[in-house]
C-alpha cells in the first residue's frame, strides 16, 4: 500500500491549494504565490519561533474548516496559524484585512526615520515595499520621532536602531545560526531596542547572517564598499571553496569590483537552500573578507523574481522587469508615504535597459540620455 499522506484543502482569496497538515496559512499562500501572499516582516521560515510579532500578515479566516465552518472572530497572524481542511481565508479580498494592514504599516512607520535616501537597504527593504503598497499619502503622526543612543557593534555590522521594527529575527539568528548571542532586545515597550548593553563587538563566525535576515536597514554591512545604492549594482551568483560554509553566495558587483557579499535569497527575500539542500547561511570570511573577484568563481547573473517594487529591475529572471511603477503594482494605485521617485535616483534611469554589468559609466550615459 502506498503511503498517501492526507492533504488539507485550503482556499485563499478564492484560489484553492492542497497542503500538508501543519502548514501555516502563510506558507500555503506562498505556494500559490503572487498577490494573495500576505507580507511577512518578522516571520522567517528558517528561524524557529519567528513570526507573530509584526502583524503585517494578518488575514481573515472566513471558515475555520469543513468540520467547523464558523469564521474566526479576530484576524489571525497567517504566519503562526496552521490550516485546517476546508479552511477559507481572505487576504486581499477582505476589507478588514486591508484596513488592519494599513494600520499596522502606519504604526511601523510613525517612528521610522524615512531616511531611505541615505539607507543602504533602500531598494531591497521590505518596509519600503510595504509602505509603497499600504502607506498613506501623508503621515498623521506629528510628534517627535523616537531616537536611541548609538551602539557600536564592532567592525562588521552597522546598527541603525531608529530603523528597527523589532522583528526579533536577528535575535533568533544569533541563537540558532551562530549559536552565540551577545546582542538582544533590551528595555520594553516603545523603548525596546536591539543592543548589547555594554559595548561588545559581534564577531562570531556566522553572526554576519543577521544582516541578511534584517528586513529593514537596521543592520547593514560595514564593509559594503563605496556605500553604493543597491540598484546601481548587479547581483551575480558565485562560489568559493570555503572550509566554514558552503561558499555559495551572491556578489553585488559594479564592473569588476565586488562591493558586497550576501547569502543567496529566494523570492520571499529569505536565505535560499544551498545546492546540497542545507540552509545557505554564509560565514563572516566569505561575507566580509573576500572582496576580490579572484576569490570567487562566478556562475552568472542571479535568477530571482523578488516581489519588490524597486529592486526588480536588476534581476534576470522569469519575470521581465516592468517599465513603470504602475505595472509593477499590477494596476493598483500606489499610495506613497513619501515620494520615492523624488528621493531616489532609481527612476531617472531605466534599469531594464542596462545590458551587462551596471557600471557608473553606464549610469552616467543613461542619465544624460534622459
Amino acid at each position, binding site marked *: 500500500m502506498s503511503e498517501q499522506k492526507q492533504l488539507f484543502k485550503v482556499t485563499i482569496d478564492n484560489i484553492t491549494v492542497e497542503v500538508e497538515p501543519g502548514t501555516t496559512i502563510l506558507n500555503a499562500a506562498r505556494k500559490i504565490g503572487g498577490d494573495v501572499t500576505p507580507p511577512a516582516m518578522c516571520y522567517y521560515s528558517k528561524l524557529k519561533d519567528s513570526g507573530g510579532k509584526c502583524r503585517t500578515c494578518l488575514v481573515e479566516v472566513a471558515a475555520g474548516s469543513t468540520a467547523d465552518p464558523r469564521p474566526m472572530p479576530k484576524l489571525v497572524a497567517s504566519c503562526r496559524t496552521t490550516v485546517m481542511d476546508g479552511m477559507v481565508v481572505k487576504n486581499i479580498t477582505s476589507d478588514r484585512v486591508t484596513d488592519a494592514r494599513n494600520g499596522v504599516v502606519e504604526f511601523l512607520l510613525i517612528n521610522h526615520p524615512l531616511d531611505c535616501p541615505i539607507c543602504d537597504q533602500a531598494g531591497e527593504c521590505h518596509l519600503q515595499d510595504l509602505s509603497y503598497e499600504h502607506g498613506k499619502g501623508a503621515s498623521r503622526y506629528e510628534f517627535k520621532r523616537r531616537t536611541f543612543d548609538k551602539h557600536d557593534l564592532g567592525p562588521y555590522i552597522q546598527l541603525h536602531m531608529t530603523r528597527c521594527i523589532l522583528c526579533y529575527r536577528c535575535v533568533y539568528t544569533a541563537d540558532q545560526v551562530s549559536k552565540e548571542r*551577545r*546582542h*538582544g532586545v533590551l528595555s520594553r515597550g516603545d523603548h525596546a531596542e536591539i543592543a548589547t*548593553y555594554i559595548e561588545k563587538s559581534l564577531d562570531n563566525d556566522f553572526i554576519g547572517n543577521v544582516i541578511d535576515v534584517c528586513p529593514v536597514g537596521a543592520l547593514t554591512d560595514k564593509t559594503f564598499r563605496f556605500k553604493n545604492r543597491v540598484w546601481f549594482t548587479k547581483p551575480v551568483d558565485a562560489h568559493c571553496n570555503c572550509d566554514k560554509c558552503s561558499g555559495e553566495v551572491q556578489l553585488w558587483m559594479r564592473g569588476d569590483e565586488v562591493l558586497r557579499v550576501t547569502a543567496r535569497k529566494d523570492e520571499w527575500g529569505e536565505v535560499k537552500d544551498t545546492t546540497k539542500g542545507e540552509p545557505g547561511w554564509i560565514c563572516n570570511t566569505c561575507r566580509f573578507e573576500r572582496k576580490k573577484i579572484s576569490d570567487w568563481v562566478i556562475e552568472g547573473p542571479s535568477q530571482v523574481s523578488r516581489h519588490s517594487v524597486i529592486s526588480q529591475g536588476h534581476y534576470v529572471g522569469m519575470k521581465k522587469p516592468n517599465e513603470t511603477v504602475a505595472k509593477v503594482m499590477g494596476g493598483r494605485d500606489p499610495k506613497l508615504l513619501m515620494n520615492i521617485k523624488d528621493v531616489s535616483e532609481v527612476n531617472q534611469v531605466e534599469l531594464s535597459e542596462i545590458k551587462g554589468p551596471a557600471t557608473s559609466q553606464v549610469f552616467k550615459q543613461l542619465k544624460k540620455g534622459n
Partner: protein
Amino acid sequence: MKFSEEQLKKVEEMISHYPEGKQKSALIPLLHYTQQQNGGWLSAEAMDYVAELLKITSIEVYEVATFYSMYNLQPVGKTVFEVCQTGPCMLRGSDDIVAYIYEKLGIKPGQTTEDGLFTLKTVECLGACGYAPMMQLGPDYREHLTKEKIDALIAEGKAKAN
C-alpha cells in the same frame, strides 16, 4: 563582585525552588537579592556575576534586568520616593504630592537631590488604589499620603543618613 559563603547559600536556596536544570527561573529573585546587596542598583559587573551563578549568558541577564521596572541600572539616592500617578491615585491628589515633594526638595520625577539623599520617581499603579495617594518606599508602601506625612518621611530620610 563575589558573594560570601552565606550569600551563596541563599542563592542555592533560591535555585532549589525549581526542578533540576531550570535554575534560570531564579534570575528574577536573584536580581532582587543582588540589587539589595549591591547598594540598591545593578551594575554591569553585578549582572555578569549573576549570569555566572546561574550558568546563563550575560545578555540573558541584561534583557531581563532592563525589562522590569524594579531594577535600578543606575545608582540611586539613599531614599527613593516612588509616587504612584495612575488614574485612581490621580483622582485622590497624587499630583499634589509630587508638587509638594518638589517644593520641599527641589527635585522633579527622575531627579536626585544634590546631596544624594533623595530620589523622586513617578510610577504606575502599585495595587494600593484604595489607599491613595501612595508611594513605595524601599520594600514598603506608604499610603494615604498628606503633606504632613511627606514632611515626616523627609525627616526620616535625613535621620537615616546621619
